[in-house]
């Protein structure tokens, strides 16, 4: 069944390449993602295999990311059907194939228990998402794709070097070199410290580039700004969570080696720096899709900050926040995509009165903004609050103060831009486009918002168990 889950999307990518009709082809997406979600749920129910020695195994951390990706793809796939139908003049062959092969690579990443395979999986994810960014084939989108590919590849190359350093750390202490996660965790206390620390820094920088942590985030506003909204949702919710999983792996090894106090200051610094940079660029942002990209930088910062705080409460909040961020980004990117199509512009100087022209999408965008900035009763409030609580409890006064300050700056900066878009009335000069909100393009963001609200009101007990398991897995040495 594992093999089926890994290979099914890749096979469907080939099917998508073979389907001649541009109109029928997008329907492969919901079919594949529905099967993927069903298989994922089955895999989650099965007892975990031997996660200590195997190469491919689903541990509690992998389970969380796998569930997030599967749900994200499933819900977004309906939107994609509507979007690709609207853009029927452009061939969607490559887009469908790349989306599905990317899903396969991300699934492999969540199962990978060998750091080499994990690296191959994330590089494949990066390669299969690059063509999605320049779907529109405008000079700007090609520039964005080039930057995404080049900066991402260099970052991931550094992460590969970091993985080699990790294997060298075991060689240096007289153990057979290995990149198997289970063995590394078991041998962690004996690993050669200088090489382990160097490996941590390289992998934090390398996978952090893919995640979009400041100051390696420069590709992010370009890529998210130029990619279609649905692709932005999958990148900001899916690919970044995958990169975060890679960082969780090396973090886990450092914890097992008893190096928690060594890595914590670096993680705190990177997290707060990302939030600060995001805040600076979000104030007065003229392009609302770029604004969403900076919001993604901010939330990646929050995740890394949560890791830096450490401890069960902060880790619980961090893992929950990863899921909440994915769902809420879905609402924002998909509704922003609708607004973009209706006005044919992403500039705040042109786009006004979205609530009048597109009551549904405009409303979703406004509610999504409230959710992502941590307003109750939505889920990000719960997770950000638990991270903040953990920071206070562990005596990180400066970090918690800065955390609140940056959240406030971002709320004001993002709010000013969002209100300018949704309020008022559309200027006369704005050309009318044929786009109207339809069932397909509003259904997906509504479902995302519903899930974000549900998680904010009560975390279902199976998910709670999964989160608890993951925290336990991170904290207890094998």
């Amino acid at each position, binding site marked *: 069944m594992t093999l089926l889950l890994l290979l099914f999307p890749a096979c469907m990518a080939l099917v998508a390449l073979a389907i001649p009709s541009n109109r029928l082809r997008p329907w492969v997406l919901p079919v594949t993602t529905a099967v993927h979600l069903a298989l994922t749920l089955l895999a989650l129910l099965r007892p975990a295999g031997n996660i200590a020695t195997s190469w491919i195994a689903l541990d509690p951390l992998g389970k969380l990311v796998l569930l997030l990706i599967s749900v994200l793809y499933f819900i977004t796939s309906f939107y994609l059907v509507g979007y690709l139908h609207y853009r029927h003049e452009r061939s969607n062959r490559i887009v469908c194939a790349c989306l599905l092969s990317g899903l396969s690579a991300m699934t492999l990443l969540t199962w990978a228990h060998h750091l*080499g395979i994990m690296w191959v999986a994330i590089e494949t994810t990066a390669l299969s998402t690059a063509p999605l960014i320049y779907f529109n*084939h405008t000079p*700007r989108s090609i520039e964005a794709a*080039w930057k995404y590919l*080049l900066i991402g590849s260099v970052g991931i190359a550094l992460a590969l*070097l970091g993985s080699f350093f990790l294997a*060298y750390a075991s060689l240096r202490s007289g153990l*057979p070199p290995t990149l198997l996660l289970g063995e590394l965790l078991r041998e962690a206390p004996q690993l050669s410290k200088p090489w382990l620390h160097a490996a941590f820094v390289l992998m934090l920088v390398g996978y952090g580039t893919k995640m979009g942590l400041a100051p390696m985030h420069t590709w992010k506003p370009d890529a998210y700004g130029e990619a279609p909204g649905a692709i932005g949702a999958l990148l900001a919710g899916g690919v970044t969570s995958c990169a975060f999983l890679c960082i969780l792996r090396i973090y886990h090894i450092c914890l097992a080696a008893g190096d928690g106090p060594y890595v914590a200051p670096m993680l705190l610094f990177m997290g707060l720096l990302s939030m600060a940079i995001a805040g600076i*660029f979000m104030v007065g942002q003229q392009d609302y899709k770029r604004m969403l990209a900076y919001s993604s930088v901010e939330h990646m910062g929050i995740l890394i900050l949560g890791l830096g705080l450490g401890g069960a409460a902060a880790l619980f909040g961090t893992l929950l926040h990863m899921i909440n961020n994915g769902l809420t980004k879905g609402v924002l990117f998909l509704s922003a995509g609708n607004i973009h199509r209706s006005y044919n512009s992403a500039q705040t100087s042109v786009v006004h009165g979205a609530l009048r022209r597109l009551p549904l999408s405009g409303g979703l965008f406004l509610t999504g903004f409230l959710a992502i900035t941590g307003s109750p009763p939505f889920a990000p409030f719960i997770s950000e609050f638990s991270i903040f609580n953990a920071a206070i409890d562990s005596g990180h006064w400066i970090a918690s103060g800065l955390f609140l300050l940056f959240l406030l700056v971002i709320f004001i900066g993002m709010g000013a831009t969002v209100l300018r878009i949704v309020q008022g009335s559309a200027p006369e000069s704005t050309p009318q486009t044929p786009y109207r909100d339809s069932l397909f393009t509003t259904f997906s963001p509504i479902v995302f918002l519903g899930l974000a609200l549900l998680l904010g009101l009560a975390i279902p007990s199976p998910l709670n168990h999964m989160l608890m398991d993951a925290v336990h897995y991170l904290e207890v040495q094998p």
Partner: protein
Amino acid sequence: MNSLLNAALVLVLALNLFALGTSRILTVIRTVTFQGILLGILPLLVHGHPSLPAVYASAAAILLKGFAIPFMLTRAMRDVHIKREVEPLIGFLPSMILGAVATGFALIFAGELPLADEHMTPLLVPAALSTMFIGFILLTTRAKAILQAMGYLVLENGIFIFGMMLVEAMPLIVELGILLDLFVGIFVICIIVNHVNQAFSSLDTRHLAALKE
């Protein structure tokens, strides 16, 4: 065996500097190709009696870096009809000096590293570090998109040299996966290079400056 390995690594280092100093794009591609083939043979030199998987990995590396990737790159070059000169952001001589300094620095730095006893003598670690540095120099000081891709390849070559000390940790399937990703990466880069040329009528990445704050 060690002297042969060291000789090959010195050749790798010389190729690095040559790639920095040459003015024709095709020569850079050929230099990096030769370096790739040399690095494909190296694992067989490191291990006196190579196992069958090691031979497969070497064959795959030579096939890819020696033939498939240069073939794609030269075709991409031919398709876009660009000027054949490198046009560096900093001159050839300064970049060669920079490369030489980086190599010297790598030699000193590697001496300070806490290496395992069996890796104290051969040039492997300094060669890996300096090749990576030079990959970065190529990436950052060359304006043309294709040369940035070459820089990425040289960077990857440096990491490959480091990985040679860790063959036991890298099963064949993972090595092949990494090579496949490299191949697909260059393939996608070539496609985007083509689009860059169509959209901007040039491969100069300095034209890619519309997106900024």
